[in-house]
């Protein structure tokens, strides 16, 4: 089989980074950054998820098709999130909200 075998050292490095990020996200949550709190929490979460996907799940070494499948999934999730567009624009008109 032609699968790329990742040296275990890189797994340990990623693990360390993930743990540090977990500590970081908890620490940041106790600071008052206004709306930036949510941004920071999501940014750290996305960063962690990307690390897991690229290294633990070997996507860094996978075919373009795998990348396309993941991109498709994320893209469709973003389409789903656009439901919020209705809620944001309802505020522009009276009788729009409860």
């Amino acid at each position, binding site marked *: 089989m032609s699968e790329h075998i990742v040296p275990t050292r890189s797994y340990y490095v990623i693990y360390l980074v993930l743990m540090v990020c977990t500590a970081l996200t908890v620490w940041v949550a106790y600071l008052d950054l206004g709306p930036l709190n949510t941004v920071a929490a999501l940014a750290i979460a996305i960063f962690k998820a990307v690390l897991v996907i690229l290294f633990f799940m070997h996507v860094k070494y996978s075919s373009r*098709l795998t990348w396309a499948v993941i991109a*498709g*999934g994320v893209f*469709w999730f973003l*389409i*789903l999130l656009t*439901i919020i*567009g*209705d*809620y944001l*624009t*309802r505020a*522009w*008109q009276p009788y*729009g909200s*409860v």
Partner: protein
Amino acid sequence: MASSTVLTPPHHYLNDGVGIKSWLLTRDHKRIALLYLAGVTFFFFIGGAMATLIRIELITPAGDLVSDETYNKLFTMHGVMMVFFFLIPAIPAVLGNFLVPIMIGAKDLAFPKLNLASWYIYMLGGLFTLYAVVAGGLDTGWTFYTPFSTVASTSNVIPAAVGIFITGFSSILTGLNFIVTIHRMRAPGMTWFRMPLFLWSTYATSLINVLGTPVIAITLLLVAAERIFHFGFFDPRVGGDPVLFQHLFWFYSHPAVYIMVLPAMGVVSELVAAGCRKPVFGYAFVAFASLAIAVLGFLVWGHHLFVAGESVYSAMIFSILSFLVAIPSAVKVFNWTATMYKGSVSWETPMLYAYGFIGLFTVGGLTGLFLAAIGVDVHVTDTYFIIAHFHYIMVGGTIMGYLGGLHFWWPKISGRLYNEGLAKIAAGIIFIGFNLTFFPQFIVGYLGMPRRYHAYPPEFQVLNVLSSAGASILAVGYLLPMIYLMWSLRYGKLAGSNPWGAVGLEWTTTSPPPTENFVTTPVVTWDAYQYDAQQVEGHVA
């Protein structure tokens, strides 16, 4: 048709193993296709029986045949059965299962055990839903709108939701199986642009299955949680928004319309090519139109909410996107029509269904423009206009495509020919009955008759009687194929490997095909639909 003697091949998938166990434990995609055929036919006739009762009730303006409660349950279960247990699985799970591996020159789908599991999951979901019927019915409409479904209804919402949830996994797994198969199992030389168009549309459908079905699954789960535990998701009493349910519901259920009609479009591409013995006009455009419909179809769910309380601005965006999705559908219709130009056009049964499909789908598609135009939609939505529109797509489109495909590949599936004369008559009856049933509904809808009405004002009676009369004709049309197809299994003439003189890998193997489809793996060196005189003569003889 075959003139010289044809023989049944000594070994084929139908006689490779006998007894009930060899069927219930089979991993052969062709046998699983037949299991699905039994399943979808069963649910089709249940749904059809309910439709019959609905139409009989509506002959008179007063609600006199059944009670209002029963009527509500009838149209709900008609919708649930037809949508989730017939229309969605029909073409992919029966014809797709049978044809996908054969058309790409593979021995089976990528995951045969998963394929069998999908059928069991489908049947399990169906039985759960049937239980909901037997245990007293379901009265929410197939759309399960909250808060009616979560707070007000006293009927069997949970068993039905669970049934649909379970069946959703069958759709997901079948779609996943097709995607992997088409990516990874193509025979040597079978490039993407040599694939028959049926595969392109099946692939596009599978994408929708995989991407959309999980959303309906989670949505129904939330409805069930709200009902069982009184959790709050859509309940206005805790600040929830019932319109959010509609967003999530239609995020799947609008693309689901394309799950139903895209495979039928694929079938029609095959029928038109074989019926005209000609390449499909604009192959690449038809292929990409399938993908365009699959993608754009995910961006238009909000057009079901024009009067439901979504914002004016949201409505405008969904309106323009809905018009865009009409374009690839129009492209397909024009291409099929152009394919007939200078063809060798056959009048055989499958081709009659193809003509019927193109005509009825065109009417369905054009009336869709009425609904995408918000100003008109406000008036006609939730009336019989909508009912007529989507039946033109679902029945005029999907069922015509399904029956056309079934007639086209029946000789391959069974190895036998059916009675062509009876089949032509049935096709004609279905076409006439269908139009008589549903055309009057456009008019009665514009006049203002709301859908889901058990009793209605007397001025709508004439049109309703016409519609019910049409339905009785349609019912005869659906029973006929049942009879002569079954009859052909035993008494039909042997078909030979290529009764239509068509090209395509499925016509190069025997009828019925052997268990692993081909004796030796085919090597493909030609494009789809390459007809030339010698080839056809060779096939026909």
